[in-house]
């Protein structure tokens, strides 16, 4: 239990997928204008990442490895991820049309969110157990959601600030992200023992 907790903290905070590994910047910049859609995006991505981690672990262990099909890894992973995203899109469209409208193009774009593929690939490289992979995937996704929420809160406040015209919009978003990454450097080398 304690091991998984450490793994969660490590993947969510210390090796945060957005701020330390710089993966998934596209939705991080795109869907962080307000907290509600950021939460929706975070949850959708968490779902996709966790599911994709499980599916890719299964594929890797029972299909790709036994048959020596390592060269098809990225292809198969993308296939699974795309299918999962399609599924999530249907569910969101059905359950919350507002959220569907707010996420817009970024919802199908989870497919190409490099965080999803990245985490799946990294987990497979680790060659860890199924549960371990799942926890690591979930932790990373949690870190993504957390940072997305924090960033959305900051940007909501930024929307009311008098940012100079030259920096308004995306530029100040990137400056803000860099400062947030600076703050997250405080967790570097964190060892819970």
């Amino acid at each position, binding site marked *: 239990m304690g091991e998984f907790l450490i793994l969660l903290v490590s993947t969510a905070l210390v090796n945060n997928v957005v701020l330390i590994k710089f993966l998934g910047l596209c939705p991080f910049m795109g869907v962080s204008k307000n907290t509600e859609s950021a939460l929706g995006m975070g949850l959708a991505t968490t779902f996709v990442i966790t599911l994709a981690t499980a599916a890719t672990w299964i594929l890797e262990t029972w299909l790709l490895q036994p048959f020596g099909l390592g060269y098809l890894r990225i292809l198969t992973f993308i296939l*699974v991820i795309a299918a999962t995203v399609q599924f999530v899109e249907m569910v969101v469209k059905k359950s919350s049309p507002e959220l569907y409208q707010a996420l817009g193009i970024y919802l199908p774009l989870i497919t190409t969110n490099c965080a999803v593929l990245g985490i799946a690939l990294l987990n497979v490289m680790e060659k860890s157990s199924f549960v371990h992979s799942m926890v690591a995937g979930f932790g990373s996704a949690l870190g993504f959601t957390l940072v997305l929420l924090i960033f959305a809160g900051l940007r909501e406040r930024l929307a009311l600030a008098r940012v100079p015209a030259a920096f308004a919009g995306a530029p100040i978003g990137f400056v803000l992200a860099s400062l947030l990454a600076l703050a997250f450097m405080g967790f570097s080398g964190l060892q819970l023992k």
Partner: protein
Amino acid sequence: MIAAILSLSLLGLILGFGLGFAAKKFAVETDARVAELEALMPGTNCGQCGFPGCSGAAAALADGKASPTVCPPGGKALIQALAAKLGVSVDLSGVADEGPKIAAIEEEICIGCCRCLKDCPTDAIVGAAKQIHAVMREACTGCEACVDRCPTGAITMDPVPITLQHWVWPKPLSEGAKAWA
């Protein structure tokens, strides 16, 4: 080679069936938003938006072909209602709200031709043939549909005068505005 083809095909098949099943299960009927949007519109079909009537504008809004600022007579209130319904944000500061205007008929020029009566979407103009027409201020929406119909140019759009009850505090200059000047 065979294994690769087989495995990928199998995978594709499984996922395809799964998604097909999900698509049935989570099917969404085409949204009733057009009707909801149309209910918000003034319903006068004045045509200032450039669409065929309010229902046309509502359909364009739902398709994303029109912005919530499409309807001039609706004013800022309608823009915000539409934006909320569509789940988009609009910057109202750019919307020039000149304040409401209503039509006025100059009695010397009016020839009593009744053309404007027929075009008024709210029946706000009263009159009869060869009689001077008059605008009922309360009913006029300021849609300007009548202005071009008048053969003598007797109809003008006058701003509604500001009274003590309708006066609105002007927006204060933003902080430091003087320092920026």
